[in-house]
């Protein structure tokens, strides 16, 4: 009996961490779908969200207001990011653009380091209660919130992209920018919107995960790598794939840390990724696609 309690306990924690990966992976997928480019600074959006939240909380503002302000800041960062990092290179091939987002990632991390210093910052939890116990399994309230908020964000995103005209317009530019422009889609604003939305999504992930992990400069890059691994494992470019991949990765990681080795916790995700690349490179839900001639 005790064994199952522990398994459920670990599974719960794994799903919660996996949900964070899924949120960041979704940000990746959105930008890939709008621009065909992987944003290497996606994880740093989570880091920035965490720092913004800690800063607002530090000034004594109430929790809910801090969240709103932090997300507004993220929206602004999305605008600036789009204008500074993507827009000047929009006519070039994907290589300069991803190198540019990589530069942005280093810039953001080290700028924050300069202003906030290297020490990790704790963030208050949403609820004072540590958690609730169900059948011997202890459920951390912060983990519950992570799961609930992620679920809501996913449903919202599903409706936005699959059921609304705006969602279709957001996806059109990646298929064919010129054709999208010809049928009257404002391509530049659609891409700008995608960056804003992804930045906010990253910010939400950062705000959610910070009470569990502490706010640090490097938190984003590790989350981003795993989120990317999640996106590949799920099937690159596929929304369901990003979610399933994220959850799977979180569970594997927590199980590995619990039963195999703590120092190598971060390596399990990458090993899983290698295994997928070897045996099923198109991921769980992916279809093999080839370039159109």
């Amino acid at each position, binding site marked *: 009996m005790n064994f199952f309690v522990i398994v459920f306990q670990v599974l719960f924690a794994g799903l919660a961490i996996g949900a964070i990966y899924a949120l960041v992976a979704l940000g990746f997928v959105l930008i890939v779908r709008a621009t065909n480019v*992987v944003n*290497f600074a996606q994880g740093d959006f989570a880091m920035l969200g965490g720092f913004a939240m800690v800063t607002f909380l530090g000034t004594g503002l109430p929790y809910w207001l801090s969240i709103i302000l932090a997300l507004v800041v993220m929206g602004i960062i999305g605008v600036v990011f789009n204008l*500074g*990092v993507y827009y*000047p*290179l929009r006519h*070039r091939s*994907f*290589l*300069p*653009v*991803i*190198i*540019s987002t*990589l*530069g*942005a*990632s*280093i*810039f*953001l*991390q*080290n*700028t924050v*380091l*300069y202003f906030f210093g290297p020490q990790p910052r704790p963030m208050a939890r949403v609820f004072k209660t540590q958690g609730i116990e169900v059948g011997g399994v202890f459920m951390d309230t912060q983990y519950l919130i992570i799961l609930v908020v992620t679920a809501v964000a996913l449903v919202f995103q599903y409706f936005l992209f699959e059921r609304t005209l705006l969602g279709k317009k957001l996806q059109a530019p990646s298929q064919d920018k010129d054709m999208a422009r010809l049928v009257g889609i404002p391509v530049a604003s659609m891409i700008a919107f995608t960056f804003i939305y992804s930045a906010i999504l990253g910010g939400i992930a950062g705000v959610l995960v910070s009470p569990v992990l502490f706010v640090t400069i490097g938190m984003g*890059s*590790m989350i981003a*790598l795993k989120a*990317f*691994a999640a996106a*590949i494992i799920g099937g690159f470019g596929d929304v369901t794939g990003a979610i399933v991949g994220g959850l799977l990765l979180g569970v594997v990681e927590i199980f590995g840390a619990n039963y195999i080795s703590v*120092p*190598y916790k*971060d*390596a399990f995700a*990458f090993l899983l*990724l*290698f295994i997928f*690349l*070897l045996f099923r*490179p198109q991921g769980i839900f992916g279809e*093999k696609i*080839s*370039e159109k*001639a």
Partner: protein
Amino acid sequence: MKSLSFRDKPLLKRLIAPVVLGVVIAFVPFVFQLSPYVLNIFMQAATYSVAVLGMTVVLGYTGQLNLGQAAFFGIGAYAVGLGTVAIGLNFWISLLLGIGVATVAGFILGLTTLRLGGHYLAMITICFQQIFDLVLVNWMSVTRGPDGIPGIARPSIFGYVLADDRAYLLLCMAVLYATIYFVWRLPQTRTGRAMRAVRENELAAEVTGVDTLRVKVTAFTLSATLAGIGGAFYAAGFAYISPDNFNFAHSIEFLTMVLLGGAQSPFGGAIGTSLLILLPEWLRFLKEVYLAAYGLAVILIMVFLPTGIWGLVRSRMDKYKKPVPIDVDSIPAFDLKITGNDPSPILKLDDLKKHFGGVKAVDGITLEITRGTVHALIGPNGSGKTTLLNVLNGIYKTTSGSVVFEGIDITEKKPHERAALGIGRTFQNIRLFPTMSVVENVMVGAQRGNNSIEAGSEALRECALSALKFVGISDKAELIVQNLPYGHQRLVEIARALAGHPKFLLLDEPAAGLNQTEKKELGDLLKRLRGHGLTVFLIEHDIGLIEQISDKITVLNFGKKIAEGDPAYVLRHPDVIAAYLGETSHATA
């Protein structure tokens, strides 16, 4: 007589300036009294440069993003560190060990990742970098953990220990110069040209006959090897290494160095490395924000200096360079090398299908193409013509059915394997290697597998020039292809296919976008090809052109064959007219 040989100056003459400069730099420490600190900076620049030149090959030449170069650098360094200190091996044996491990690691990582293309390599190399870091720090019993390895000894040559910093630096410079020379010569070799073709247009390279996977894996493995060499010399130079020297930040440093200097030339790599190692020394006041400045620099370089410092210098220098005139008359006539008249069909399709989900783009085509004929494929937009061509040369995998070329079932073969059997191709939306010269574009075609010409660069060049002369633009041979007008670019693409001496040529709408004069010239070219007995299969919308040149026409509609026969019959066939004009079919009514 003007020769067809490379460039304007012989190799030796071009080498004089760089060799003199290199020797001067290498002997600076012996002439001037330099502090050990400055010598250390020199040593760092020399060993880092070797790793950065690996980035030149993989990123600059081949267009693949490697973000784990510091890990391969670390493999070389730890091989020397652990080999000499922990196991007590000789430096040179440790060096070979390090190079071996780095090379094998690069090969395995490349082979698993590069099948996927695009963004994968970048992310996977970061993952590799992170795992490497974790192992260095945590596997204490072997790597000695975060404390690192002190007391690494200098190597000796013929019993003479290079304990003097200046003598060891000289060795590092010699290694660096050898690397620069190798990397500098690489682009003019078959493999180097193939690498650049992959960077410029991977799909076109594959279809032209380049084994793109092999080329990408070669480039990536080579970059890992060079990083291993650099790391090994770095370790012996500084006597102490720790995991901090080989983390992700250093991979980014290598990337920034190659981008700043210019990724497409080894000189750029060396300049970028030297600058970025010296800059932090000069800009000490930036210490706290220097990594932030790095990040910003990467973005700014991408926006304002996409070809790096060397690229900028190069383009200024090229302005003063006189174009080399090409003696068109001395170019030998092109030999298409069509032999025999085997009566069996050259290509047979049997119930070929290609479905995309529910869309039946090609839906059960059975077709035979007779050797030595011009066979046209027509049909309304969206009838599956280009899809059929893409299945024929292997860009798309067939859903079912078979493709048999000269009696060999090629249904499962990759595009470059089909090119090696003698299938050439052009594209509807021209796919050239834009920043390469016209003749280089065509040379990539000439170097396809099994092409019946000599292997040397001179023979390839001669074949390429002959093919250009055949299509009538050999005077443009040395121009950069993206600067040519559209009509000429089409001809370059045809010449590229012809230089591979194809037995079977696929043309996808060759007349699209051409004006009347160009169309007439194209028609004449196609007639000449037919006269030489080349089998051509072409998609075309210009019915006038088709009537003039084709022996047989096949008509597609909704992925199915609706008519086939000689032009006079097919073009008057009621089903064909109905399909084009959008009326209901008379025949089935």
